[in-house]
């Protein structure tokens, strides 16, 4: 049933290979251990550094240590959306199944990271601002990003046919991508109009290196973790969709 259209030979070879679920399954199987070890080391090291050795903030005290998960998760949640939309577009244009699967795998991952950013932000807000939630620009736009993810996931689960679901969500993700800068811009503007400037997050505190170095480690660690989780989800999705192909059957029987 798998038919590789051979008339599009202007595409580089790796593009075809990438388009083959089986090749993808194999290559991710080889990459996974390396990324897992890297992610584990970076996250563990970063956490120890962040909790034990980084200095406390002179104003916020030790609650400042939340930054080491808050900022990486917030950054990741945003880049994950880009990746999802990009993969969706590739799937839509070149009918590449693996890209569809990557896009599908991105959604729950991104949503959980957005949730993490929101949760850590809310927790951080309590000691610093005295309230779990305020209608601040950054917070609101992260909430909206979470809604965008939830929309993509809901649409995916509502459509039974895999191809249709992938195409529909790709359209939605692309529309959302156009909107993300608009949302960010509008929310920030709205906030500066209504909100007293006390809660402003935009100015970068001039941090000493012993504060931002562990942050850098954590961010890189989060990216590695992101790769690991994405590959795990992707592999599951590949197996699910190809479950009746001979190579998966062989894999099942060889267990």
């Amino acid at each position: 049933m798998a038919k590789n259209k051979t008339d599009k030979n202007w595409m580089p070879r790796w593009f075809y290979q990438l388009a083959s679920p089986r090749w993808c399954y194999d290559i991710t199987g080889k990459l996974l251990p390396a990324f897992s070890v890297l992610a584990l080391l970076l996250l563990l090291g970063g956490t120890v550094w962040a909790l034990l050795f980084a200095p406390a903030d002179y104003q916020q005290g030790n609650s400042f240590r939340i930054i080491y998960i808050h900022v990486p998760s917030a950054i990741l949640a945003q880049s994950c959306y880009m990746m999802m939309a990009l993969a969706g577009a590739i799937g839509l244009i070149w009918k590449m199944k693996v890209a569809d699967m990557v896009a599908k795998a991105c959604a729950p991952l991104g949503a959980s990271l957005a949730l993490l950013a929101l949760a850590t932000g809310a927790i951080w807000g309590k000691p610093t601002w005295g309230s779990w939630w305020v209608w601040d620009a950054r917070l609101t736009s992260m909430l909206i990003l979470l809604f965008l993810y939830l929309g993509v996931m809901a649409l995916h689960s509502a459509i039974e046919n895999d191809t249709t679901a992938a195409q529909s969500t790709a359209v939605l993700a692309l529309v959302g991508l156009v909107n993300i800068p608009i949302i960010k811009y509008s929310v920030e503007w709205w906030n500066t109009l209504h909100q007293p400037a006390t809660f402003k997050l935009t100015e970068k505190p001039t941090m000493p290196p012993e504060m931002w170095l562990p942050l850098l480690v954590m961010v890189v660690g989060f990216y590695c973790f992101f790769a690991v989780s994405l590959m795990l989800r992707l592999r599951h999705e590949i197996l699910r969709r190809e479950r009746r192909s001979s190579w998966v059957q062989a894999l099942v029987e060889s267990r």
Partner: protein
Amino acid sequence: MSEIATNEPAKARGPSAVGVFRAALKRDLLLAFRSKSDLLNPLIFFLMVATLFPLGVSPEPGFLALLAPGLVWVAALLATLLSMDSLFRADFEDGTLEQALLSPQPLILIVLARVLAHWIMTGLPLTLMAPLLGLMLFLPADGMGGLMLSLLLGTPTLSLIGAIGAALTVGLRKGGVLISLLVLPLYIPVLIFGSGAVQAAVTGLPLAGYLALLGAMLALGVVLAPLAIGAALRISVSG
């Protein structure tokens, strides 16, 4: 009625694009007028909001006046959102959508006509009724102009974005809520700039910036949304 039947010169192939757009618009408006309630939909919803809030929240003019700019915009947004689910559903269920997709006429035009008809039936009456609502909620008179202008520029964008959600969910058994979830995050910029414009008008600040932004979003929507809607419709029907 019979205009629909005759506005297409027999065998003409070349310049029929405008003809199809006009025929589609006429048909959609006719459909809306036939089920008269569609016409009243936003009107009723608007009036409902205007009566329920004083009853449920507080009848005090000062408080309502503070509430009014945002409330009118939220009501407009909800009214549009709630009418969105039925945008393509009836056509999907009786097979007319299939026929439109199989037609050699450009789908974008048909889709654009549908969205325009939707706006004429919801956004436009909303805009025209807004002063009444403003009055009932004690919106200062200075805000009326800003209110109407912002709605005039903002509601078409709402219709366009909403239509994308409607097209994506038309093939599903229950689209109602899903649409809200898909579309709401995209509506928020319109809401913010729209209510911002009214607030600026009330407080006497310049509102040209807001209106320019609303206009820019509308322009972007008119260009991009029909493409997304058309693609989504084909995907939904093919599934």
